[in-house]
């Protein structure tokens, strides 16, 4: 039984366990399942970081999905895929370890993945603001998440922005502003305060 790693078309290296068929089945044995869940968690977060994906839904495991997660959740070479129940189980585990958060809250089908800590997001945010010369101007969330040039922040949902801004605000590098059609933020240079 040799399984091998595999590089996807997007350049992501899938681990060899991804080629093992039992990996795609929910195990009744709790210890075995814990091992699998841990590897799945790591894999999903790594893939999310690689592709800049923020949201993982249980629907992504449905047969007809065809979304961005297909490279990970399916393995055509061994003809296996992650079933929705298993994905739900993995999501639960990730939320339990605070590596993800159900968003919107109260449901268990879609979650935001925290492959970066809010502190890191804060730094990324500030860096980007500085680099694109948008300090001291008021920016809307939309401008941040959908800038004309794609950045590491493209597609970032507001739920991730807010904690990052809050952290920046604590160190005086940003300020949350409420404007008419949404929320805005203003960045200040690092050296300020």
């Amino acid at each position, binding site marked *: 039984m040799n399984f091998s790693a595999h590089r996807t078309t997007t350049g992501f290296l899938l*681990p060899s366990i991804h080629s093992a068929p039992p990996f795609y089945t929910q*195990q009744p044995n709790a210890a075995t399942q814990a091992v699998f869940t841990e590897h799945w968690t790591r894999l999903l977060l790594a893939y999310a970081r690689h592709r800049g994906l923020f949201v993982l839904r249980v629907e992504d495991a449905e047969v007809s999905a065809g979304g961005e997660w297909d490279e990970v959740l399916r393995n055509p070479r061994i003809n296996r895929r992650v079933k929705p129940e298993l994905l739900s189980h993995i999501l639960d585990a990730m939320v339990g370890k605070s590596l993800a958060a159900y968003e919107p809250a109260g449901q268990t089908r879609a979650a935001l993945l925290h492959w970066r800590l809010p502190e890191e997001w804060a730094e990324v945010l500030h860096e980007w603001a500085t680099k694109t010369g948008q300090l001291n101007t008021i920016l809307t969330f939309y401008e941040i998440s959908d800038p004309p040039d794609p950045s590491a922040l493209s597609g970032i949902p507001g739920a991730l922005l807010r904690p990052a801004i809050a952290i920046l605000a604590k160190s005086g590098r940003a300020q949350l502003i409420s404007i008419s059609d949404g929320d805005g933020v203003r960045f200040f240079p690092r050296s300020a305060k």
Partner: protein
Amino acid sequence: MILQRYTRSALLYDDEKNYASQDNVGIYDGLQKSVNHPNGTISVTTHRLFYIDAAKPHSRSFCLDLSSVVRTEYYAGLFTSSPKATIYLSPEAPLAVATADEAGESWQCDVCDFRNPPGSSPTGAKCALCGVPRRKALSTSPTPPRAASAPPLSAPKEVACHTCTFLNHPALAQCEMCGTALPQAAPVASRGETPNTEGASDDGMMLRLSFRKGGDKALYATKATGQRTTPSTTERFGIDGLVRGVETSAQSAQLDMNEALKDLDALMVKAHEMVRLAGELNDRLTTVTELNRSSGAGAGEAEPETATFIRSSLVQLGLKMTDVSVTLDMARDEKEWYDQLARELAAVLQGTGGKTGRGMMGDRGIIPLDEVWGGWNRARGVALLTPSQFLQVLTHLPAHTDPIITERTFHASGLRVLHTATYTAPAFAARLQGRSLVSGSRTTLDIAQEEGVPMGLASEMVDEAEAQGVVCRDETEHGEVRWWLNVFHEYVWDGQQDAMAPAGEWDV
């Protein structure tokens, strides 16, 4: 003793007729002569039996209701002992005794309070004004000397409604005030338990009449008829009657069963003896033939024909001598008995070697428990073992079996099996690891075929291996389950390295 109940006036009721009288009768209270009633006249009427003492008629006479007589017996008498009639009486509750002057006094009707003139019998009286029959027996007089008795028996016996606690007349079915149904106190409630108690307390409830001057037969006959005309205490209608009918039929069925089982016990004893005799006979035949063989100089004599015939008929009767079942009386104590049973079971399972080599387990290494129990009991034929005894025998089994057989319970389904060492969980897991799954995955069916066990058993064992983390499952698109060796607990990540890059170094 019992005579104290029955001192009443000797006045006849209106509807009572005297059947016969006999003088020179003595009374035995229970089994002893009654001191106060040595000699008197016995009269049998339609309702009662009177004894009027010859010497002191006023103080030493008594009467008793014929309805309280349960049984009579007659004893014809020998030379010096006179003929006697024994009367068995029902053990009425003490409160059932009507007051001393029931017949001799005017009585008050409970319904209309009319004071009726005396002279009517306790059972047949009707109030002259309202026609309601007088309540039978049981009630104490309006001036209750037994005030200490329980409240429901105070006179007249009113029934307390359990809803509103109003005291209703016992004849009512509904409470007068609130209308709820009243519990019906049976009119002869305390008397209802009296039948069926014959035999047990005879000695205390017995009276004997000793006819010193004859005349016993005539009196006895009339008393018998007189007893029949009075209303019997045993009610044969209503729920009471049904219940009593069921009881009597159940009792008779029980008696029949006991008798039948006694016969069966006797048969079993005889069968035991027969087996023993057959064994002795067989032994003797064997010794005789051996002697013949050793003494016959190399002639190799065959057994005499009679011996062969006897032996074959023994076999035909099913009395095989080599497999005498072990029963409890053959062993000294329980522990040894279980040990011997275990030895017998080992022989049954694995064969005794030689002729019956294979035994029940044959070439299988594993066998379900119910099959073993059934087969062993069938082989024994007599003195079958209960499941609990069987389970106790199993604990002694490993000591007598070779290869060792142990019992095992599968947790998932509760299936219990006897098995040899090849089917323990670790052995099975080792086989899986070594043989079947190295080259890839297997389905349960493949594993069953490789191991040579039924599919269900294989699935049980694989489930157990999964529970121990030896294998893990893989479900294909079509729902088929395949089994892989679980090598993943030592897995080392070899995918995308995803260490968080330090701040400032990502491509923004």
